[in-house]
């Protein structure tokens, strides 16, 4: 599999480390009532067949964390964007 790193160009998957679902958001509340949200954030993940958005670290390259959209069924990679760039936009 090839991943198009926005900084390095297209590189093979062995240069990358996968972390999992990138659509989860770290809660900001530290109130006990937010524990359910924290549990979801830390533990709850879908394992879809098909489109998936996940955190990928270019650990064997520029060391940027990316958000990669790919299809777990066809292995097609749709896009790879640096998390820093994404956050800056939102």
């Amino acid at each position, binding site marked *: *599999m*090839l991943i198009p790193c926005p900084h390095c160009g*297209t590189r*093979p*998957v062995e240069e990358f*480390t996968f*972390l999992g679902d*990138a659509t989860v958001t*770290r*809660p*900001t509340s*530290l109130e*006990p009532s*937010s*524990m359910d949200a*924290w549990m979801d*954030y*830390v*533990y709850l993940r879908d394992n879809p067949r098909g489109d998936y958005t996940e*955190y990928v*670290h270019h*650990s064997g390259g520029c*060391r*940027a*964390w990316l958000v990669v959209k790919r299809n777990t069924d066809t*292995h097609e990679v749709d896009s790879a964007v*640096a*998390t*820093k760039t994404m*956050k*800056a936009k939102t």
Partner: protein
Amino acid sequence: MTGFRIANGGLIDRSTNLTFKFDGKSFKGHQGDTLASALIASGVHLMGRSFKYHRPRGVISAGASEPNALVELREGPRKEANTRATMVELYDGLIATSQNRWPSLENDFLAINSLASSIFVAGFYYKTFMWPKTFWEKIYEPLIRKAAGLGTASKEADPDTYEKSYAHCDLLVIGSGPSGLMAARTAARSGARVILADEGSALGGSLLFENEEIDGTNGLSFAQTIIAELASLPNVTLMPRTTIFGWFDGNIFGGLERVNDHVAVPPAFEPRQRYWRIHAKRAVLAAGAEERPLVFGGNDVPGVMLASAMRHYANRYGAAAGKSIAVFTNNNSARRTVGDMKDHGINIAAVIDTRKNGKIINVKGGKGVKSIDLSDGSHFECDAVAMSGGWSPIVNLMCHRGAKPIWNEIIAAFMPPDVGPQFRAIGSASGKMLLSECLNSGIVAGTLKGKTPPTPKCKDEAFAIQPFWWVKESTSKAFIDYQNDATAKDLPLANREGYGHVELAKRYTTTGMATDQGKLGNVNAIAILAEAAGKSISEMGTTTFRPMYTPVSFGAFAGPFTGHHFQPVRKTPLHDWAIEQGAVFVETGLWMRSSWFPKAGEDWLASASREVKATRAGVGLCDVSTLGKIDIQGKDAGAFLDKIYCNTFSTLAIGKARYGLMLREDGVVFDDGTTSRLADDHYLMTTTTANAARVMSHIEFCHQALWPELDVQYVSVTEQWAQMAIAGPKSRATLQKLVDGLTLNDETTPYLAAKDITILGGLTARLFRISFSGEHAYELAVPADHGNMVARAIMQAGQEFEIVPYGVEALSMMRIEKGHVAGGELNGTTTAGDLGLGKMMSTKKDFIGRMMATREGMVDPARQCVVGIRPVDRTMKIRSGGHLLKQSDRPSMANDQGYICSVAWSPMLDMWLGLALLSNGRARHGEVVKVFDGLRGHHYLAEICDPVHFDPENRRLHA
């Protein structure tokens, strides 16, 4: 014709004489021969015994699909089993041995299996060896292995080297026959980067042996002209002897180049094989088509071969399969064999065409063809049979990513699926049966830009076929899969017994397994299975095509990364100094760390004990360069560290170090270390050796994905600094001799000071007053290139205090004496509270792990927490791993209350002691527990105590 060598023609060099041995007997061949062609030319057809029935077998094909002529090639450590004689290029001194026979190829005792074949029908493994279960390992399996094993592997280490390499191209052309050459030339002329790969020893594909006429010349010279042109172009890479064995995600292709398999021993510095990973923008499959056998009685008698293989041997190698041959076909292409054989002066005994004049019922002969019986009752003498059951496009690679091939009625074959423009099939691999179509499809596929050039003129041979799958009238065995000895009758049987699905039938009959993966037999098998199941071939479908197309050696995949080179070695900047001091090294991850420094006659325990005592009595020097060091800068560096660590760093004074504890987001302890503030916006973090890389990734994630708004920059400086721990009551006096213009005392350098200094007259250094040993101690960091020099200078300075170098064993003893937690306790299950560090968790800020660390289960007082442990019998040696039970409890894991994490011999207390995790342990100091070691099968009593075994008041630290 002398013997079976045709007098003229072909691509062999008759002026060379190569001597080789097959089963101990000497033969001669020529440069350009394969092992198979040289044997055929020597009149040898019997090349192996079959897998199950041990029937005599000869060569069927002239290429990669060969199921029968498998040999052990070479001897000793270079021996390679299951090598296809059809692919082995002959060299002088070649040694090959037949397989699957005992005691010899001519007389095989196990051929009796053939007579007892009623018990060897499909599914025989399942049926025969089911019961009793206990017989499997001791009786059935060894028996099956002896009876049916393929070749044997050498047990000696392979002396040759293997390589890996990447390649990139605009167009990868797989196969160098007419269509492949056209595609390569067309793309190359337009300036594209082209790789042309072919599994054969020479480029040219079918043009190396088929009589064709193209562009007013013969096919061979047409091919040679193009190959010469391609060879002259800088944008073209020609890769003969290279099998493209797999197609992977991203249009990446795996290739195996047999760099030096065609010589006895690779030249110095050259690999035997090279594994290629080819990144292709586009690729074309020009692998051609595979001729299918026909299924009739005795279709495995040596001398029966594919019609195309017979003319391949005659035309390219000058090797005649027989002196009088019969041709059996269901299609037009075998006419070429008839014509070519006649041209070579070989007698055609009979031509049997299922569309016209019947079928061969049985071939007569044991170790060679003697005659054939036809369906009309006639009988012909002959010594070889050419068969052609049609042509199957070699679609394998196109199906490696899951697409299925599509049945085509007109050519009676599976066609490659459409997998998009990145990878297309051309020529006969795409079902084109006319030469003109092949040439044209190559040109079209090679046109990456601009206008399509014209197609060269050529002579076409019309193609027609009438599917014919099985001569059911045959009375002798009709084989579908030669390598697995599966016969035509096995498939209806599989269907009757409920294994009619194509994937189930494969497993039940073993059709399509082993080294050839059914390249020749699968389509026949599917057709016969479909008929038995009352389905169409299209409905039946194929089994799954997977990489590798042909077998690839483990050596090629391992490449140069074997033995000592399996993984890189990481050495510290003090490595040379440690060697001078007689260090014994230990691998810690990739690092080589000095473990102990034995003097004559000392074992590790004596050495490490002496190092501890000398350090605690005077001064010791330890290489701690492997600890992770991360330079953290930026306006928000402090705020960022507050997120990363559970304790607070933004309030740390400049010039001070602080012990920090990091949690994972689930609240479990992740890592620890001291982090210093060098300037307002500049910190230096240390991590454990084991977690250095993980912490770096974690920091990168936390910043880039969670808090990118923080102005913080970080980079690993682990390798920039050589870092030394100088510990012991004489550490200050030792260091003082090196330091420039600074008096070391509690005012200038108090406990937890961190400062930039210079030493030895101007050398940049960083000094930290921190301690892992519990002694008055420092860590001194100097730029790595100066590490050895500075370590030597410290040894010199400490000489009067009898300074010793100490290694990680001594370090470990001292930290356990002091109850400092390390890897054994920071083991991915413990909370800050478990480690006795619960108070470090700030309640005033958010940090990674804060919320989850508050969960009920994470703060349960019954949790296992760190305690000290010592055996009640002080002379006893204890080991880590033992489980802790109440003293009165039965030794059983049902009564488990915790376990011992770390143990060490304590040179200071003169006994073995350790750190353990024990349920509610802090309230149980003084309790005697039972230690149950189920693994070693014993139990003993031990006393729980404070984790700090030695100097509990920390007097030495502040001395």
